[in-house]
């Protein structure tokens, strides 16, 4: 059966390739004018098989329907539907300010007679908690309500909704959920006042045993008897807690609990304790005084220091325990 010579031999160089290959199509050796070769022959010195009668070239996907000329034509056709980017949204910061909520959902396309895919109904809503208007109590309550869905490193709250059958329903539900959480966090329920020290989200020195301890310590230093009545503070606690050394001590203990122990916080704690207890650094200068006399003095001073240091050790221990 004789046929005409292949079309590729009669193609002008400046032809319109988009008319020759308009859509995605299997490779046709007689239409593509390129001298392509594909395959591997283990014989030494042999070239890959030519494009005629080559099934390998037909198997692979080709992009002869997406050449630059094609893309240009597509762009020209689509351009009339495009609108300019809105003014005032040039920077990321502006985008975040005006559009703080980030919605994402997936579309799937498979090689299948059906276009339905149940996973395409899932909607993810992301919002930065700093963009919501919350006071201290509201933020704490929101974070407790939301639990795992909040990422403290990026400050992003993520809500994933998939309980409804359609995407639109899940989108509406996500927005409703965010509104509900926000308004709930601003409300204060009557049972919230029953919050105990163990429920606290961070260490508050004002309601800790450390405050009671130091007040009792300072009272005993002044010669008053220690206050024995349970959790309550004695009446003159305020005159001790208003002292600047005690305030510094309170700050040091809070930072140890809240920010963790590191060299800086432990050192500041040490300085604060020393100031509040009143330990004076003594430097003994040995002059021409006789050694016996000095030794006696040193022994006396040493015992005082030893007493003072044991005193301090107990206070360190008790404070760190709480």
């Amino acid at each position, binding site marked *: 059966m004789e046929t005409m010579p292949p079309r590729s031999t009669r193609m002008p160089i400046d032809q319109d390739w988009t008319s020759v290959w308009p859509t995605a199509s*299997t490779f046709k050796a*007689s239409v593509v004018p390129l001298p392509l070769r594909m395959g*591997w022959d283990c014989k030494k010195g042999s070239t890959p098989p030519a494009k005629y*009668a080559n099934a*390998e070239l*037909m198997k692979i996907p080709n992009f002869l329907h997406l050449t630059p000329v094609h893309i240009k034509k597509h762009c020209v056709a689509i351009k009339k539907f495009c609108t300019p980017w809105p003014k005032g949204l040039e920077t990321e910061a502006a985008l975040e300010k005006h559009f703080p909520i980030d919605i994402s959902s997936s579309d799937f396309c498979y*090689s299948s007679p059906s276009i339905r895919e149940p996973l395409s109904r899932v909607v993810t809503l992301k919002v930065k908690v700093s963009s919501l208007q919350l006071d201290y109590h509201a933020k704490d309550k929101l974070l407790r309500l939301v639990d795992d869905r909040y990422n403290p490193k990026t400050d992003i709250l993520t809500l994933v909704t998939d309980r409804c059958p359609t995407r639109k329903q899940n989108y509406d539900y996500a927005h409703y959920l965010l509104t509900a959480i926000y308004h709930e966090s601003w409300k204060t329920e009557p049972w919230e006042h029953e919050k105990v020290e163990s429920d606290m989200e961070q260490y508050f020195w004002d309601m800790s045993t450390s405050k009671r301890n130091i007040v009792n310590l300072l009272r005993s230093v002044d010669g008053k008897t220690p206050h024995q009545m349970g959790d309550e503070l004695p009446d003159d606690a305020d005159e001790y807690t208003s002292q600047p050394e005690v305030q510094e001590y309170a700050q040091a203990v809070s930072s140890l609990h809240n920010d963790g122990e590191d060299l800086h916080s432990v050192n500041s704690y040490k300085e604060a304790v020393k100031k509040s207890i009143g330990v004076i650094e003594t430097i003994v200068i040995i002059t021409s005084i006789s050694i016996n006399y000095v030794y006696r003095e040193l022994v006396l001073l040493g015992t005082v220091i030893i007493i003072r240091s044991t005193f301090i050790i107990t206070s360190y221990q008790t404070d760190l325990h709480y």
Partner: protein
Amino acid sequence: MDPKILSKMAASMRVVSEVAPLYRIAFRGLSTTPACCKVQAGRYKITLQQNKPLTYEQAHPPYRIGVCKGWNSWNTSNLHEAPRACETTFEDSFIRKFIFGTWHGLFVSEVIIKRRHNMVILSGLVQRSVSARKMYFLIGYTEELLSRFLKCVVKMELQTVRDRKDVVFKYI
């Protein structure tokens, strides 16, 4: 019947009806060699005359798939959580059998099945041993029947080859 033949038949029948002696029973059984766990999938045995033609696809064994052989079936069913994996495979084997039966000896390469959204595109090399008119009929017939079976749009994009010998890669 010849009496000699009859007597021979009787003798043989008597031998068969006798019970074998005990020392013969111990040696009864199948004669076997040790198992040779040989892989022979997709490999062709060489001939003495070196005249068996092989196409490029047949010449390379299966471990060369992905190296110097491509796949014949292209679809999304093997992606993570993709639907219709077994249906796609089953449909592929059905298509290949259908084409083998419809195009009598006309296909000189494997059928290449590509799936794009809801379209099934069949490809391959066909030899020009029938007239173009008959070939157009076969294309239309295949497309119509397969699209009814598979409930998808089926298209055929064939390439023709003058002779079967044009696709021969080597002789073994």
